């Protein structure tokens, strides 16, 4: 089957480290973390989180972010556009606030609780042609991007809007605390002194099209795999992540040694770091620069795949390798970690997303041919 090219032509994001993609990328390069400590979420415990400083609701912020993407694009509206959403907990924050106020389910609106609450909100604001929502924990929006890629590559749609969205909720904060993986400071992915991850909220919106526009970057391939190992622990040898990366490269017909930058999933937990570095080392050795940007943004869960896709796109546009902030003493001595920001010509960037259930997705981006 002939394959259409897929371009990321417009994007915008909001997270704790920046109210726009431009300010986020500046923060990453300046190594200024958006992570702050909070004591109100867990009794008698300080934890570090990525909270968006906002003067209006997160739903209004989501609409505004989509509007900015529309303004950047060559479209007048989204009427011929498919919406693909990726979210881990959807409207859980709304559900929590109603249930904790009422102590019963009566006033919970299923339309605002479920994962597709985001599509519901956006469909009311923009006249989108159709929508679909994916929820695969922390790979949700990476999988949304993969689906959008396939929709355009196979000639079904010309324009697909991808939204990655997750807000802070007590469910995720206390859930990760129950797993014993929350850090009390900005996380240190891949460092021997790491002590866990930072839950964060984020919005990332990307417009994918079948033709390039302005400085559009190509989405060249996607690779999916399952660890088939454990619900909350990655396979120790990184076999699942390795398989996903191999499939993304094969999909794009790109050789590993030509990849210049890998934006790792890099949560800062011992299990993730060991598994992912094994996988990257097996496929890339020390060829590509590697960094996790979660010490700046936190782990935005279902939004992470889309947010980190934007970081890869901007890295390619600017030919800048984003640094791995808070990495001083790497556990893995082979990988070529980017400790400081680097300006360097490179053609391809890979982004990894790894999730509960052993769900793995890798996305390969490249400069247009």
């Amino acid at each position, binding site marked *: 089957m002939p394959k259409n090219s897929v371009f990321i032509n417009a994007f915008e994001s909001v997270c704790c480290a920046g109210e726009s993609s431009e300010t986020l990328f500046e923060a990453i390069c300046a190594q200024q973390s958006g992570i702050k400590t909070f004591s109100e979420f867990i009794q008698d415990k300080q934890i570090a989180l990525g909270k968006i400083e906002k003067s209006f609701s997160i739903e209004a912020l989501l609409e505004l972010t989509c509007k900015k993407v529309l303004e950047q694009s060559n479209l007048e509206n989204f009427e011929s556009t498919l919406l693909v959403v990726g979210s881990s907990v959807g409207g859980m924050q709304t559900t929590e606030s109603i249930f904790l106020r009422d102590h019963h389910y009566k006033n919970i609106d299923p339309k605002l609780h479920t994962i597709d609450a985001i599509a519901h909100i956006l469909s009311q604001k923009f006249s989108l042609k159709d929508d679909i929502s994916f929820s695969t924990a922390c790979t949700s929006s990476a999988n949304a991007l993969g689906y959008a890629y396939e929709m355009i590559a196979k000639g079904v749609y010309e324009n697909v809007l991808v939204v990655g969205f997750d807000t802070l909720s007590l469910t995720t904060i206390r859930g990760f605390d129950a797993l014993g993986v929350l850090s009390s400071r900005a996380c240190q992915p891949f460092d021997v002194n790491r002590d866990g991850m930072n839950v964060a909220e984020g919005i990332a919106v990307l417009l994918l099209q079948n033709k390039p526009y302005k400085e559009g970057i190509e989405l060249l391939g996607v690779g999916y*795999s399952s660890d088939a190992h454990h619900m909350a622990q990655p396979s120790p040898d990184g076999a699942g992540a390795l398989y996903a990366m191999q499939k993304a490269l094969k999909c794009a017909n790109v050789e590993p040694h030509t990849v210049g930058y890998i934006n790792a999933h890099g949560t800062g937990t011992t299990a993730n770091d060991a598994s992912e570095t094994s996988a990257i080392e097996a496929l890339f050795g020390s060829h590509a620069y590697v960094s996790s940007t979660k010490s700046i943004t936190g782990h935005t869960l279902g939004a992470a795949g889309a947010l980190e896709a934007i970081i890869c796109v901007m890295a390619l546009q600017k030919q800048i390798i984003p640094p791995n902030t808070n990495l001083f003493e790497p556990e893995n001595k082979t990988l070529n970690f980017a400790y400081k920001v680097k300006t360097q010509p490179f053609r391809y960037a890979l982004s990894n997303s790894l999730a509960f259930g052993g769900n793995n997705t890798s996305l390969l981006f490249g400069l247009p041919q």
Partner: protein
Amino acid sequence: MKVNLEILSSAYLLGEKSLELPRIKELVPQMMVRRRLTKAAKICVELLNSVEHFEGGRILCGSAFGELETTANILNAIKDEQPLSPTDFQNSVYNTAVSYLSILYQNHNEILTLSCGDKTSLNVLKAGALKALDGDVLLLLCFETLDIPNIEQVNRCIDYLESGVALVVRATEKKATLSLQKSELVGVANSISEMLHVAQQAPKLARAIVEVNL
């Protein structure tokens, strides 16, 4: 784009209350593993073992409400200021049920879960049709597990509180023999309705082929 999907095998389960799954001990003999499975995971195990022609491969799964029991456990623990169960948390994500399938059957392939309200099973079919263009045989699943305490406070129209549907499909050039519509059965969750209709009608046809409009 229109894609015709041939239904190679189908199965469904409907329960007005908690579904009895008498084969689950036989299908998952290890007690410690079985105890960790959510009800949705057990339904998916039962469905996988009820269909033919799927020897492992890509799986697409849909649910509007996901793992409602563990979600409710988490909400109640937060309300009561109790610590959360790590197992409830890891089992609360929407891909829990199919991830257990991947673990139990060592399936390393692509697994996607989607959640689209009333359109869930329609979108599973659409996503299945898109993926089937690669020439693969796929397993499509959908489920709802709403039999939790006090669900009547918020549920007003779903009689079958537990349900699941499985379809094994592949793309075909042959003409459609089955229309894509909602099930005529009253009281099933809208989120499984289109796939249930296909699963109910397919065994009546010599060759069941449904047209999916992407």
